[in-house]
């Protein structure tokens, strides 16, 4: 009967273990007043296990909470990214609006102070075929725009109107090869005609080979053509060539770049011939 034998064997063991637990209980109950040695010993023996279990439990709880937290963070991150995109777009739009407001404020100042009867217009297209350089503005004959009216910006002259339809007008740029503006060198008062070269520069024609002109001299309108008022900035001399007979080649770089124009002023005929205010020397955005 091995089964019976095996059952008798643990009886002694059972007795010993139960006795041990009874002693432990008695010791624990007695030790409530000041703590028992047995309890302390057993707690010390089990403390590594308890610490390990507590660590695992804390780690589990921490991982769980962090996981839940990360799910929230991911959602918040997605929402914030979308918000950043929206705000970035709004900031760019606001910056563009600010720049436009600055340009328009400058243009309005010029209009109010020097050319009250002028017409503010917005550039809507640029044309260029061969050496022709023209721009289209959104004001036409119904707004009072007519051919042979000067077009300027606070930085200087742009060109003149060559065609005016009811809602749009074509402006011949200074650099167009058909453009000609009566000009004068500001420093030496040497006069000439500023003619476009079809690209980005103009040349000052009819300048005597002995005329005192230098690179860097400022060229303004003389007002003799009856289109531009006197004193509007045209450009700066960028090259002075050798004498060619009685005249010499003088290259002028226009102050206004027609490719960067956005708003202009069209001067009515009455405005032409009057003295223009000093040109703006701003170096910021091209108005």
């Amino acid at each position, binding site marked *: 009967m091995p089964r019976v034998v095996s059952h008798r064997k*643990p009886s002694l*063991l059972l007795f010993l*273990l*139960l006795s041990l*637990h009874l002693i432990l*209980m008695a010791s624990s*109950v007695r030790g409530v007043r000041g703590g028992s040695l047995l309890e302390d010993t057993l707690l010390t023996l089990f403390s590594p*296990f308890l610490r390990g279990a507590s660590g695992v*439990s804390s780690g589990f*709880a921490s991982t769980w909470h962090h996981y839940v937290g990360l799910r929230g963070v991911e959602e918040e991150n997605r929402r914030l990214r979308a918000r950043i995109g929206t705000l970035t777009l709004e900031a760019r739009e606001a910056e563009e609006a600010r720049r436009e407001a600055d340009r328009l404020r400058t243009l309005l100042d010029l209009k109010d102070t020097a050319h009250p009867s002028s017409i503010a217009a917005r550039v809507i297209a640029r044309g260029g075929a061969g050496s022709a350089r023209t721009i289209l503005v959104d004001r036409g004959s119904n707004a009072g725009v007519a051919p042979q009216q000067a077009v300027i910006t606070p930085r200087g002259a742009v060109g003149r109107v060559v065609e005016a339809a009811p809602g749009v007008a074509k402006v011949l740029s200074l650099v167009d090869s058909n453009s000609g503006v009566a000009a004068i060198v500001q420093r030496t008062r040497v006069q000439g005609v500023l003619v476009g070269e079809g690209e980005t520069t103009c040349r000052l024609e009819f300048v005597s080979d002995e005329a005192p002109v230098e690179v860097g001299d400022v060229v303004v309108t003389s007002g003799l053509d009856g289109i531009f008022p006197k004193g509007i900035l045209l450009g700066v001399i960028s090259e002075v060539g050798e004498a060619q007979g009685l005249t010499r080649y003088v290259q002028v770089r226009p102050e206004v770049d027609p490719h960067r124009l956005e708003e202009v002023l069209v001067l009515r005929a009455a405005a032409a011939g009057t003295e223009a205010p000093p040109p703006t020397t701003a170096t910021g955005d091209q108005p």
Partner: protein
Amino acid sequence: MTLWKALLGLGGVALVQMLLGQHAPAVAERCDLFAVYTVYIALTRPPRTAVVLGSVAGLVQDSLTGVVLGLNGFKKTLLAYLTGALGSLFMFNQPVPRFGILFAAAFFDPVASLLLSLAMGQQHSFPAFGDLALRGLANGVIGLVTFWVAARVP
């Protein structure tokens, strides 16, 4: 099942009981995983090993719960012995009898506590029958799941 596996199982039981105590106290109050462990060991291990492991499980439970040291050790030692003795008299290899002894183990615990408290002159309150039935039900279900899982673990 080697001794190391049994001790590993005891560690797992302690860990799960701690987690339940921290995150689901209501469930932990109705689940005595140490009792389930003791019954399982008593039905699957030799009697001497079962008694020793039951005793250790009780001590671990004492350490975790902070009750009088030796109280659960005493009860689990006795539970292991009695379950092993019953296991030698009856067949507990089917779910229904296993559920029955697991259910009974839930009742054994407060009865033993009551007797010990009386013997030591301590006051003790006996839980309501409904609570005991719930504990027995929980022990039975968890125990059956334990047997089912353990039978499939290599």
